[in-house]
């Protein structure tokens, strides 16, 4: 369980998060949605301590991110997938995935690599274990990024606009993997721009704009009958006036 408790964060004079609160339960898939610059990415980067909080607190399974000693435990329970993949370019795919498990979790190398191969098989990249990131397409790199996160056997998965740097075809291959994880009950916080996808996999939507949480609703309600004009405007823009009939 992740509890975000009235957090505030500024970059210089720009206030990116203003008094944001939210709770993420185990097994829940939450989509964080909203216009660019609304603070979505900053929110999830605060959860694993990549950004320091100015105000408020975040507790991950009871541990505060403000407690420096707890940060390592928090980080190994909240694995992150990045927009720009951020794979280690000097390591093979296999080494990318098994680095943190061996160094942080002290797993024996053989076990970490066996797990890595298993994950690669799951995302359809079983034959690319020895490749370097530069030899893979963007979609393949991001699937490796997902494996790298899953190798930590995290309680929570933080996905930071993981398909924004990909073209539609590659986006589809990555989303397929994420959807499978969601169905398997992985706790996920996913910041993204794929409205259709959010509606399909998420249990709940948090809509953020200008550093505030504007709405925090079950997904059906969010897409179905929201009254807030800001959300309606955003959804209209993002879904390109898709008709009611398409909805599941």
């Amino acid at each position: 369980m992740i509890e975000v408790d009235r957090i505030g964060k500024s970059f210089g004079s720009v206030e990116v998060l203003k008094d944001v609160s939210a709770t993420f339960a185990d097994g829940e898939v939450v989509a964080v949605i909203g216009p660019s610059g609304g603070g979505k990415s900053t929110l999830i980067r605060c959860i694993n301590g990549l950004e320091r909080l100015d105000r408020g607190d975040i507790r991950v399974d009871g541990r505060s991110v403000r407690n420096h000693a707890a940060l390592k435990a928090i980080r190994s329970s909240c694995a992150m997938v990045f927009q720009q993949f951020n794979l280690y370019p000097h390591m093979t795919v296999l080494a990318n995935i098994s680095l943190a498990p061996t160094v942080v979790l002290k797993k024996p190398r053989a076990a970490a690599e066996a797990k890595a191969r298993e994950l690669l098989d799951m995302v359809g990249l079983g034959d690319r274990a020895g490749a370097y990131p530069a030899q893979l397409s963007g979609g393949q790199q991001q699937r490796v990024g997902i494996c790298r996160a899953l190798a930590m056997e995290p309680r929570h998965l933080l996905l930071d606009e993981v398909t924004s740097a990909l073209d539609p075809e590659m986006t589809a291959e990555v989303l397929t993997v994420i959807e499978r994880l969601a169905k398997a009950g992985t706790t996920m916080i996913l910041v993204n721009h794929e409205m259709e996808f959010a509606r399909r996999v998420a249990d709940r939507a948090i809509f953020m704009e200008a550093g505030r949480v504007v709405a925090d609703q079950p997904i059906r309600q969010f897409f179905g009958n929201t009254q807030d004009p800001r959300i309606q405007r955003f959804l209209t823009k993002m879904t390109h006036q898709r008709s009611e009939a398409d909805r599941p």
Partner: protein
Amino acid sequence: MYQNTSLNWNDALLLLDGLGTTLFIFVVSFAAGSAIGFVLAIIRERRVPVLAQLAAAYVELFRNSPLLVQLFLLFFGVPSILGIHLTPLAAGLITLAINTGAFMTVIIQAAIEEVPRGQWEAARAFGLGYLATMRHVILPQAVRTMIPPTVSLAVGQLQVSSLVSIVGVVELTKIGTNLNLRTLAPFKIWPIVALGYFIVSKPLSMLADWSEARLKGPAERRGIGTDRLT
């Protein structure tokens, strides 16, 4: 009658001995300088209060003054103040190490800072500590950037190491000076001395080219035919 203008086997041994001393001075001072550079680069990169500023002052001071002046300062100046005596070799080694350290600090710091921020974040986000991140993720990438400037520096430092002959260190240049005084055959002596430096310097840059090509390997292979996409 007292001048022996021809070179004999004994002179050849002297020159070899001088080359050995030059090599020793170069290797020891460059290793020590690299160690200094590494520590200071980390201090600068982490912005350790006070120490980072001191490191910056040291770097500026030693990069922007002549090595010979630094050598005189250490060999003549420091003993006169502290009352300790330094042998020429010790003074030469220390000066070269400190001088190399200033340049290496800049090279290593720049290489570390050139590694994209996302690499730090990816490692830290998975719970790797500072040292583990450095060791597994940052340094292996920074080394690639470091090789070319480090080699130019090394080649340069090998050559300026000849300056320590001025305070009386008996290395290759000093042997050359002595033989030149005796033989009065500068066109015979100095090319031999130059060759001595060349045979150390050339393999150094060859080693650099080789290791650079080797380290580039995986990334360079990108986009080549069969390996690409399915």
